[in-house]
Every structure is written in C-alpha cells, then in structure tokens.
C-alpha cells in the first residue's frame, strides 16, 4: 500500500479533512468573504458593481448550501493533519519574512542550511555543502543569466548592494 509520500501530486483535493472543524471554519470564512464582497459590490455604481454582484450572490448561496450540508453530515476530527501542515507553513512564512527583511543573499543560505539540518536531518558538513552549491547555482541563474538584481532587504544598509537598504514600493 502506498504511503502518503508516494502519492502523486494532484489538483484534486484530499479526501480527508472535509468534514472536520477546520473545514467548517474555512467554509464559514469563505462565506463571510463573499458576504462582505457582495455588500461592497452593492455600494459601487451600477456598471462597476453589476458583475461582482451577480457572481457574489450566486457564490454566497452556494457557500450557504455547503455550510448547511456540513452541519447535516456532522463533524469529524482532523486536528492532527492541520498541525503537521502548520509546521511546514511556519518554515515558509519565516523564509518569506527573512527574504523581505534581510534579502536573498542572506536568506537563501541561512534558510537552506537550517531547513536541511532541522527537517532533512542532514549532517553539518552535508548541509553546508548542499547550501553552498544551491546558493551558487541560484546566484548564477538569477544574476548572471537572468540579470535580475536580488532583493537586498528592508533592514538599514549593512553591505552596499548586497545586504540592506532596499526600498520597497508602498503597499
């Protein structure tokens, strides 16, 4: 019997965790988003809000039907699966935050080394070697081949052109 690691990736959703409390929260959140979008659409002028009003109304009805059918089926426990996904999510969020904060030149090698040591359980020297190889490859690909200047980070400038001093456009 194939384990999870052997199952191929697919666009189709996982069969598990459909009816658990996490799923209900997600459905309710989506319903709230469409309700808010519908209210916002109604405040635009006729042309601007017409199409969003139509599809938000239809989708809101669908979401209510989905939530009602969930209550009809009853919840199942899916906490364990959510916890496992959360740990991976933390790594990814920290990596993105590191890139924004200190830039690619620092974030790539630091994240790669820590991830390989912590998650992949590589030995110290293996992780270091892999990190060095991956960093050189990525630097070569982006800077020398694609001529993209990697983001240097929002922190105050520490090494000109490499670490810090980046100016991000306004949000």
């Amino acid at each position: 019997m194939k384990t999870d690691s052997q199952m191929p990736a697919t666009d189709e959703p996982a069969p598990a965790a459909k009816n658990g409390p996490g799923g209900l929260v997600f459905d309710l959140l989506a319903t709230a988003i469409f309700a808010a979008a519908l209210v916002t659409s109604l405040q635009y002028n006729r042309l601007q809000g017409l199409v969003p009003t139509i599809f938000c109304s239809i989708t809101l009805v669908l979401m209510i039907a989905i939530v009602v059918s969930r209550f009809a089926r009853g919840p199942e426990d899916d906490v364990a699966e959510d916890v496992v996904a959360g740990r991976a999510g933390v790594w990814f969020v920290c990596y993105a935050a590191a890139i924004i904060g200190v830039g690619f030149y620092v974030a790539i090698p630091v994240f790669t080394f820590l991830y390989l040591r912590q998650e992949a359980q590589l030995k110290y020297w293996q992780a270091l070697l892999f990190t060095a190889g991956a960093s050189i490859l990525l630097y070569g690909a982006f800077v020398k081949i694609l001529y993209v200047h990697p983001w240097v980070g929002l922190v105050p400038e520490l090494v000109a052109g490499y670490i810090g001093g980046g100016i991000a456009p306004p949000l």
Partner: protein
Amino acid sequence: MPIDALLHGLATLMRPDMLLTLFVGSIVGLTFGLLPGLSAITGMALVLPFTFGMDPLAAMLIYAGIISVSPLGGSLPAILLNTPGTPQNLVSCFDGYPMAKRGEGSRAIAVTSMSCLVGTIIGVVILLALLPFVKMILLKFRAPEIFWVIIFGLIALSGISRQGSLKGLASGGFGLLIASVGWNDVFAGTRFTGGSLYLWDGIPLIPFFVGLLAVSELMAMSARGGQIASNVSIDIEVKGKARQTWEGILDVILRPGLVARSSLIGTFVGIVPGAGGAVASLMSYAAAKRISGTGNTYGTGNVEGLIASEVSNDAKEGGALLPTVAFGIPGSPEMAIVLGAFVMHGLQPGPLLLNEHMDVVVMLVLGVMASQVVASALVLLGATYIAHLTQIRVKLLIPVILTLCFAGTFSIRENPWDIIATLGAGFLGLYMKRFGYPLMPLAIAFVLGELLERTFHQSLMMNFGNYSVFVSSPISVTLIVCSLAVLAWSGAGWLKGRRSAQAETAAELAAERELMD
C-alpha cells in the same frame, strides 16, 4: 491551419536557439513528470516567472515540453517502482510494473516511449485536421457567444470536479472575485482594493499561480516528508537491453488497430474541457481489455494494456489543445496554466487567438510534437539513470524549488511584496485542497474573469442595454443548454453520492448495533 503558417513555424523551430529552448522544455517536463509529487502543473507554475521576459514563441516551446513530456516522465516510476509520477500514469502501473518485475523493464520503457510518441503525433494530426472547421465556427462568435463559452467552460470544469459541483462552482466564484480586484478599463475605476496601491493593478497573475499551484504543493510535500518514491532498488535487466528495446518498439508498430483506437479515445477525451488526470488512459485501457482476446491477462504484464494507456495519455494533449486555443476553455488542468501564460504574454485567450496569433498556436502545436521526439530519445537511451532521481528525498528539493518560486516571482516586477502574494496564494491553495475545493476552476476563473466581464458589458452595449442579446443567437442558446445540462448532471451525481453516503452510514450503524447485541 494554413500550410504556410506551418512551414513558417517549422523554419522558426529549426533555429539553434529555439531547438535549445525545446530541449530545455523537454528536460523540465521529464523531470517534473518523473518526480511523484511534482506534476506538470507545478512545473508550469514554476517556469512562468522565468518565461515572462521571453519571446512568446520560445516560451511556447517550454510550455509544450512540460505538457507533452511529463506523462512520459511519469511512466518511468510507474513501470519501475509501481509509483505513478503523475496522476495520469496510474494505469501504467497495472501492466508496466509486472513487466519490469519479470525482467522486461527495458521493453516496457521502449513501449512507453514509442506509445507516447505515436499518441502525441496522432493527437496533433487530429487537432490540425479539425482546426479549419473550428475556425469557420469561430467566425460566428461575437461578444455574447464568447461570454457563454467562458460560462460553459467554468461550469464544465466545476461539474467534472471529483469533489462535486458545489465546491467547484464556489471555487470558480472565488476566482472571479479575485479577478475583479483592481482597476477595470470598462468603467475606469477600481474595486476591492481597500485603498491599497499594491492592488491597483489587481492580484498579480504569476505570483498567484506560482503560489496557488507550486508553493501549496511544496507545503504539502514538506508536511508529508519521506522519500519521493519508496526505497526500492531500480532494477532493469541489463543483459538483452537492446533486444528488449527493439521488441518494445515493434510491439507498438505491429498493433496499429490498438494504437488508432487508443489515440482517438485520448484525443476526444482531451477535447472535453477539464477532463484531465487518468480519464483518457482509464477509458482506453477498459476499451482495450474488453475488445482484446487476451483481456483476462490485463494487469499481469500484458503489453497491450500499457500501449493502450500510454497512447491515449499522450493523444489527450493534442485534443486538449483544441478547446484551449480555439475557445479559451482549457482542455486539461495543464492547459489552464497555458491560458494564464497567454495572458502573461499579452495574448488574449479565446476565439480571436487563432486569427490574430496563429504563429503562437503553431509553435505550441509543433513544440508538443517535437519535444516528444526529444524526450522519447532521451528515455530510450538513459531510462535507468533518469529513474534514479525518484530516490531523492523530498526535503532536499524543497529549499531549492521554494527559492526558485520566490526568486522567480520577485524577478517579474522586482517588487518584494509579490513574495508575500505568492506565500498567501500558497496557503490559499493548501487549505482549499485540504478542505475539498478544487483549484482549477479558481485558476481558470481568475484568468478569464476580466474577459468574461468585458464581453458581458460589450454584449449589453451592442444591444443598447437590452439583455435579450444573451439569448439571441443559436450558438448562445446551445451553450446555455449545455451549461444547464452539465449542472443537472453534476447535481444528480451529487445527490446520488449523498444518498450512497447516507446508506453507508445507516449500514454501519446497523452493523454496530448488531455487534453490541
């Protein structure tokens, strides 16, 4: 398709830079097909940022390589390790793996390579034959007809979704909502931006696709961990490899009836919008088993079973191109990404694509065929070595691929906030999949949402605000009827599923009561 467009396309393809691009696309397709967990969809999403600045013709070769070759790549672990590289290679395990176990691995791989090549060529030939007729129909498409084509495409994709039409339709609605964010030319105003300058141009396409399709899959892989394939040694009979390879090639050539039937099934399944996955190969396998005189040996290493599944798998890609390039409705999930790529390169998907950008369509079609030739040759020469890639541990790949995702999306506009958009889309994709919402309707609705709204307003303007324009032509009425039919069919399927689930629950409760008694 005009002959001169084809000849011009061939001449362009023969340029050294284009051939190199074709080779790169084939390698990427082979790699992403080979590694279970990394499908063609992930590969397409990953290369989008890197092809952004490329000439559209060269970019089409990369996409063609990934789409066309990934089923071939996915068949290698299916045959050697009983682990399909992509979902559509599931059926290849049935007979491919038993063949490898009894020492005919080289023959199975040769059968696969030849089948993929022949299937692709036949699928493309059928596509080229149908295109002139489709073009004639397309001339009758105006704004209302294009509007209904998009609606039909979204409903068809949602209805075909395994998890039921309610969540599929809701997913499509979410995609339309995301597509509405930002500035709109029709009424010269912004919507749903919350005053944010970042959202003025809307949710950026590439970071969203990369996050939704690639980063979400990486998160899931990181959570699952383990090895890409089981720790089984890859053992191909080395002695007699050349003989087995020749036998495998002959196996396909000497079964023209099976090849033709499987190609037709694959091509026409591919034409059905959204029918991806293993549908074509399953149907072809079932048909071959029923018709064959040795049907009872299918599943034990019958070479016909492998031929049937592999030929239809690849013929499907030719069929899937037809609705994609002609109507802007993706024929498969991979074609949904191609539509996004069209938009990225400034090409409007839909009926006008064939008329205004025939060179792009030709290059995509030629790329599908040519990359299959390249990949088949590579696989025939080095299958054993390529298949060892499946022994790599998942967590070694994640830092590299994640970095490619983040750096790739940053490189488009050199805006660091695109990295946050990518990450956000990654979480969205992860939890949508986890809680039963298919991603393809969302992706398609996101790509086609703007066109949908524009054609809606154009239709009203054409008829001075009168809504009767939407039901005034036979094509529109036909599309409305088809959409309602798909909704009714998927609704009936949902009700049937609920009744079965309720019946199962009742049976389980009854069984428990008996045990307690």
